[in-house]
């Protein structure tokens, strides 16, 4: 009795352990790559970091349309946390095939070989704005097609503008004029200009003064320059005389919120502000003009995402075809209509301008636009710079630039 019982237990134990080992290890070896079936017939997965339902629906519709015409099945996933989900896919060897890549994530993904550099294979390669192609070029290779882009402009509350006795002739075209109108527009209830305390906004003033954080081919840190100092000094002068305030001081999350709530008569934001104004502040009348020129002429910053293709994708050729379709002039115009972005191809410019007459300033300023730094590690440096810019009103701009220069040099030399 005793004996048979323990035998039985032994047997049961062995079966349990064996079953666990098999289920645990079977087929989940860490080196398993994606096993491809017949190439060309593989289903494509598209992963997007969507700005909202409108964008998700538009991309789903476009991808479904391509699927029916090409015969390649596909599905669209709206990621909750894009970079994290992409990283998981790359580590497991089974990433999504086509996905959004931001400029600051590009270098990391390109450096570890996760991305397929297909840019030169695109039929519509020459149609993209050259500045955008630059921002998605890493190590001399054009990695991925720009999805769309945005630039910064000066957004003006038309009612407050009139109330301050200003006319169209007063629209600022240089720094002195901007200071003057900002002062005039500052009254009890609101300030003249609201700014987000980050390089992605204040950097535009540095560009107008002729400065950038890195030289053109991103091989040298150029943070601590007189031009950048002039840009920050100008912003600081606005903050000091009270005609400009940071959004953080106004209790707003970003410029659009401060502007929409009537806490500021002007703000510096990109074309995404149009969607927010329609959705959240439909009663506020506004107009968009180009940012005023600085001592070194007109300048702004531009932002973009691209359509990345995974190096591990079993169906890269179909993926490239899909991206060609998604970046085509017609499709980009459809996207622009659905969720208010600016097409990344020059052939859509005229069409877009006539469809969005109030927003032309954003596209007009694209010529002098500079990219955000995109080398590996530069995002951390910019994040650190942002944390220092929050206290620009009381801090010494030269010190901020000096410490950022040190950080940027470390990033450049590690490249």
């Amino acid at each position, binding site marked *: 009795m005793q004996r048979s019982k323990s035998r039985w237990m032994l047997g049961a134990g062995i079966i*349990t352990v064996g079953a666990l080992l098999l289920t645990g290890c079977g087929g989940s070896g860490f080196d398993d790559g994606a096993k491809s079936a017949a190439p060309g017939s593989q289903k494509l997965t598209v992963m997007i970091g969507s700005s909202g339902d409108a964008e998700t629906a538009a991309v789903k519709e476009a991808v479904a349309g391509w699927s029916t015409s090409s015969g390649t099945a596909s599905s669209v996933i709206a990621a909750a946390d894009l970079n994290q989900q992409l990283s998981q896919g790359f580590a497991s060897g089974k990433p999504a095939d086509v996905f959004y890549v931001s400029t600051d994530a590009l270098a990391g993904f390109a450096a570890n070989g996760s991305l397929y550099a297909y840019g030169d294979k695109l039929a519509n390669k020459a149609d993209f704005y050259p500045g955008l192609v630059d921002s998605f070029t890493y190590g001399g290779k054009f990695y991925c097609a720009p999805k769309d882009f945005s630039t910064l402009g000066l957004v003006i509350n038309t009612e407050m503008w009139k109330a301050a006795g200003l006319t169209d002739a007063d629209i600022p075209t240089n720094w002195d004029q901007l200071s003057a109108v900002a002062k005039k527009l500052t009254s009890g209830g609101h300030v003249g200009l609201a700014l987000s305390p980050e390089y992605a906004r204040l950097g535009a003033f540095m560009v107008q003064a002729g400065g950038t954080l890195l030289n053109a081919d991103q091989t040298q840190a150029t943070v601590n320059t007189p031009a950048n100092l002039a840009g920050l000094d100008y912003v600081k002068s606005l903050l000091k005389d009270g005609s400009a305030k940071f959004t953080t*001081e106004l209790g707003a999350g970003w410029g659009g919120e401060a502007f929409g709530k009537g806490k500021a008569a002007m703000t510096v934001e990109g074309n995404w502000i149009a969607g927010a104004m329609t959705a959240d502040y439909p009663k506020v009348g506004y107009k968009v003009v180009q940012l005023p020129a600085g001592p070194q002429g007109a300048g702004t910053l531009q932002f973009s995402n691209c359509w990345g293709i995974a190096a591990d994708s079993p169906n890269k050729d179909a993926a490239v075809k899909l991206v060609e379709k998604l970046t085509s002039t017609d499709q980009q115009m459809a996207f622009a209509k659905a969720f208010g972005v600016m097409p990344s191809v020059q052939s859509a410019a005229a069409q877009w301008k006539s469809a969005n007459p109030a927003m032309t300033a954003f596209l007009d300023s694209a010529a002098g636009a500079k990219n955000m730094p995109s080398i590996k590690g530069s995002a951390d440096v910019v994040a*650190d710079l942002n944390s220092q810019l929050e206290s620009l009103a009381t801090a010494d701009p030269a010190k901020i630039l000096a410490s950022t220069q040190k950080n940027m040099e*470390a990033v450049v030399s590690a490249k």
Partner: protein
Amino acid sequence: MTAVTTAPPTAAPVPKKKHRPRDTIAGWLFTAPMLVILGLFLVVPVGMALWVSFSDWTGRGSPFSANVAFVGMKNYQDLLGGGGLAERDFGTSLRNNAWYVVLVVPIQTIVAIVLAVLVNRQVLKGRGFFRTAFYFPSVTSSVAITVLWLFLFGATGAVNKVLGFLGIHGPSWFQDPSGVVHNILGAFGITQGPAFLTDNTVLGLPLWDWLAGPSVAMSAFIIMAVFTTSGTFMLLFIAALQNLSGEVQEAALIDGANGWQRFCYVTLPQLRPTIFTVVTLGLIGTWQVFDQIYTGTQGGPGKTTLTPAYLSYTSAFESQEWGRGAAIAFVLFVIIVFFTLLQRLVLRERPVSRRHRRIYGAPSQGAGK
């Protein structure tokens, strides 16, 4: 125990010897499923992470593949003495989290004890209601509470409205990077630290900045942590209080101890094991704070709510510095183990000291545990 006492003394050693190997096998077999599960889902991943922290893995494919190299202590070196941004960020995150721990753990433990004693009183009407009310924040998801907090502590939120009634102009909580200690010193006109504090740096951060205190934004998170976790720990203290024998209390009553003395000298010492549990859980939880930061501030304003757990996440997933992210996690692990051992040492059961023995008049030998 029972087997030993019932078996005849002479026969006892024989079956013991005979059964031991088989018992051992059965024992191993019964624990095997758990060991396999733990091994597969805990030991192996932890081992992988440890390897990643010593490697130059870039986040693509397996960390054990041939093209991943061993880089020794490089990732740890970057964090603890690199002199660059990585070191300063890590120092900043440790500073923020240390202030968070120093304030949250004692406050939440004391609040939990006080609440437990209050709702444990027989005379209190509607005890069930109060217990539920105090426990309620604990069962709500931390993400939901964080969102609630963002509204409450907004620049024009409810908290500032209430402060406004009292004539206080509230800060814009989650946008204010200024340290609370610095602000208090600033009120006395001290805005610049002495040279030895501003010139000497630890982990890339001047000592003066280490002493900044939690930022106003972090203070809001500290209040939130106390609000949400005190209820959980209150439950532990209620359970412990109900286990205490009433006889000791009665004896103290007869000895003429008043309520406060009974609490300090009778109840509290008996709660020592529970206090140890609560402080340990508190330490572990507060050193690992992540979800509030992830949903609330992403480390801002001015990096003053950056915590090691969140920095580990961003280093790996945003900056693609996987080795550094893993290294941060292991340094954090060492910190947690260190503090747990330290407080174990502090809260250990001590033999009665000679001075107390004289006061109590207890027999001098063999009375201590």
